[in-house]
């Protein structure tokens, strides 16, 4: 590693003409990429452009059909992920790949446990795992805990620790920030800077341009499996250029305007809702045609609150009233019958049937409504799914494909799209734009606003504060399981929200004011 560090700027990885086909899809169609030691090289591209496929080729998961991969000056063909890791390439995948029923430490050292004579040093593994987590600013995650019990962001941290545990020369991160809240992203960037200072190269994928501006050195843009621009300077290339190279058109990245009309009657009334250790005494109202946003850190109880309102978790205190009728606690079926829909946080484990076609995933909640006398009607379902696919720019626009073959952002569109079918009166969205590209994001915002205009109430959680502020009519700020502020979105700005959600105690607030 030290010799690398001395030669910062030397090319460690060079790809040319890389091609990868899946049955029916040419995911990569001649890709060029050049990564230097000590740089953060960003990959940009729309959903389905081939970013994840490219990094899977680098990580030895896929073998390229054609093209050249040069690693440290030599042509390589990795036989599998293990070989790539041995060669010094560590990867954090977009879809988390942890083993639920192993502990945090076991996951981090899976496949390369510290051992002698075939015996694993459990204590040592746990200690080293603890150190890694500490470096990531998350010493509080117990190394012995089962990964299953961690929230999505915790899992992402564990994934990151695993990549760090490999003392690699190149670390690839596929949308690592998608599940992280604002302060966590700061942490991530600190780590990335430490890594690059040691001469380690980082390939960084994100749909958030502001992150690329902050952490990136150079940018390579993919479009439809081809490289449409290489080695652009990350800080100085105008956004307009980046977007048009990604999409082939220019997109105004704006939120749809709020309507002048006042929202309608109250749809959802939550009073004093609580679950021990998660949140207490939460009151939320959502009216017809209103978008209510919840901001807060990961771990502030946001997702738990949404799931409890939806009945996926059993409320211990308080009531949920929908349309004037109290919902029985802990019954998703009752919530769905009352017209509530929820797009959950973790698409893979909570929302998708990966082996099933897209249309069946979209109609999972309401396939019975297309059926007659218990007999399903695939034709009607496909037609309905196709309409949603058009609306959300699903790519490829073929609802008969297995969801497994879709890119991450397109899978997310399927999860949200599900609730655009049928007659949902209240839509609960947990991180709806996670992994969705700039263009489709604007599209999705418009769709959500249109729904509201049609009288649907929306309750939304997002780690991206600007998204909550830009999209919602009214904002609730949560901290440590309580609502600490409620205000119309127009009367609160990003800094207020960040102050509130961060450590947020009075002392912290006052010191900041003094500093400012």
């Amino acid at each position, binding site marked *: 590693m030290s010799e690398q560090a001395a030669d910062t700027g030397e090319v460690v990885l060079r790809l040319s*003409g890389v*091609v*990868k*086909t*899946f*049955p*029916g*899809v*040419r*995911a990569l*169609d*001649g890709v060029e990429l050049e990564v230097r030691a000590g740089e953060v090289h960003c990959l940009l591209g729309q959903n*389905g452009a*081939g970013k994840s496929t490219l990094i899977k080729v680098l990580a030895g998961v*896929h*073998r390229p*059909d*054609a093209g050249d991969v040069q690693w440290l000056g030599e042509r390589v063909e990795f036989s599998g992920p293990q070989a790539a890791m041995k060669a010094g390439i560590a990867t954090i995948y977009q879809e988390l790949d942890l083993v639920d029923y192993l502990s945090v430490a076991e996951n981090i050292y899976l496949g390369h446990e510290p051992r002698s004579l075939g015996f694993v040093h459990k204590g040592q593994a746990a200690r080293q795992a603890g150190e890694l987590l500490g470096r990531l600013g998350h010493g509080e995650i117990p190394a012995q805990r089962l990964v299953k019990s961690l929230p999505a962001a915790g899992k992402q941290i564990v994934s990151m620790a695993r990549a760090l545990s490999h003392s690699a020369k190149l670390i690839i991160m596929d949308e690592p920030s998608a599940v992280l809240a604002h302060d966590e992203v700061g942490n991530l960037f600190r780590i990335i800077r430490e890594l690059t200072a040691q001469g380690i190269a980082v390939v960084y994928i994100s749909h958030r341009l502001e992150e690329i501006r902050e952490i990136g050195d150079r940018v390579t843009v993919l479009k*439809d*499996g081809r490289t449409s621009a290489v080695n652009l300077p990350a800080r100085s290339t105008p956004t307009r250029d980046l977007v048009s190279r990604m999409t082939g058109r220019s997109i105004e990245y704006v939120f749809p305007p709020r309507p002048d009309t006042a929202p309608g009657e109250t749809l959802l009334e939550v009073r004093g809702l609580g679950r021990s250790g998660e949140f207490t005494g939460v009151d939320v109202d959502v009216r017809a045609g209103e978008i209510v946003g919840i901001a807060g850190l990961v771990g502030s109880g946001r997702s738990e609150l949404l799931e409890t309102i*939806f009945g*996926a978790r059993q409320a211990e205190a308080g009531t949920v009233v929908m349309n004037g009728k109290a919902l029985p606690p802990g019954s*998703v*079926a009752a*919530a*769905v*019958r009352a017209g509530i829909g*929820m797009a*959950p946080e973790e698409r893979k*484990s*909570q*929302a*998708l*049937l*990966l*082996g*099933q*076609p897209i249309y*069946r995933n979209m109609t*999972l*909640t309401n*396939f*019975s409504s297309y*059926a007659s006398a*218990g*007999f*399903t009607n695939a034709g009607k379902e496909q037609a309905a799914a196709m309409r949603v696919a058009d609306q959300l720019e699903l*790519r*490829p*626009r*073929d609802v*008969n*494909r*297995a969801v497994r*073959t879709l890119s991450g952002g397109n899978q997310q569109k399927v999860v949200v799209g*599900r609730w655009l079918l049928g007659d949902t009166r209240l839509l609960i969205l947990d991180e709806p734009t996670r992994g969705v590209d700039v263009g489709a994001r604007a599209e999705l915002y418009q769709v959500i606003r249109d729904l509201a205009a049609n009288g649907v109430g929306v309750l939304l959680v997002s780690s991206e504060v600007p998204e909550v502020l830009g999209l919602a009519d009214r904002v609730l700020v949560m901290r440590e399981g309580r609502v600490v502020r409620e205000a119309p979105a127009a009367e609160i700005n990003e800094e207020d929200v960040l102050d509130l959600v961060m450590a947020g105690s009075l002392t912290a607030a006052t010191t900041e004011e003094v500093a400012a």
Partner: protein
Amino acid sequence: MSVSSEEKVEAPGGHPPHTAPAVAKTSWWKDEAQEPMRRNLGLVGVLLALFAIGAFIRPDLYSNPDWVINNIMVILTQAAAIGVVTVGMTFVIIGGGIDLSVGALIALSGVWATTLATQSFGPVGMIFTAVAVGVGAGLVNGVLIAYGKLVPFIATLAMLVAARGLAAQISGKQTQISADQFINSLATTRIVGIPLLVIILLAVAGLGWVLLNRTTFGRRTVAIGGNAEAARLAGINVRGHTMLLYALSGLCCGIAAIMLTSLATSSQAAAAELYELDAIAAAIIGGTLLSGGRGTIIGSLFGVIVFSAITNLFAIANLPTEVQNMVKGAIIVVAVLLQQVRFSSVTQFARRHGLTRAKPQT
């Protein structure tokens, strides 16, 4: 498996990924749908091979068309009861569960339906009893698993032991002769030359196919087996449905109990021994994923027939059952290996294929 069809399917894929949806339509998903088809063709191939082996060993018999047709009916008749059970089992496995109690439930249903008291109600009483006992015990399984949160393996294992015990208790460990002419005649009746038991099997399989592929019940089953949490968050009543799946399996056991009683003109507590293993194995070699979420009725049916044909062949060749069991074991292993090879082989194939096409294209 079939290289040429893959090539045809793949050919239009040369277009860039963003072009017309029609391109994708011809390929991937259809490919998946054709996958079970290909597996079934494989099983048909196995059947043909078994036939060829038989013809080789006993040319005297196999040259007689009447004997051959009759022998096919024998094979199908032997497959009938276990086939009905396998249909139920396929639903349970696709729904993410397993039912180890099917053999025991057949014994219990059969014994209960042939007690002197039940027989006094005539054939309708006997059939009703067998079906009710099967469904009832299946419901108990279902309640324990869905609401009692027991692991299916454990719950149905317990049911296996308990139901065999109860059957022995009821029958006093005696073989119970069925004196009912109607029930006994079921096994010997033929309709247009086809044994009634085979017709029952085909009817159950046909209904099972419709239920799985064309109804909301089937859709729920696949969804729950594919991702129970996603199904729950989509508003599907996962528990209630899981319970019904075990009741369905129990129903199939009740039907099978009548079929077996008719074949043997009697019932006993030791009937249908190890049927659970045969049914699971048949479903698996038919392409049902043991982890749930995928499977076909037709595949399971072929699986049962393959097993039955092997038994038949060994009887014809006069070989001991030990060898037969070894061959069965080997077939199960090969089938499961084929399932695992599948994905990687498809992608590997696509890669090789992509390589050969990439050059002329670019």
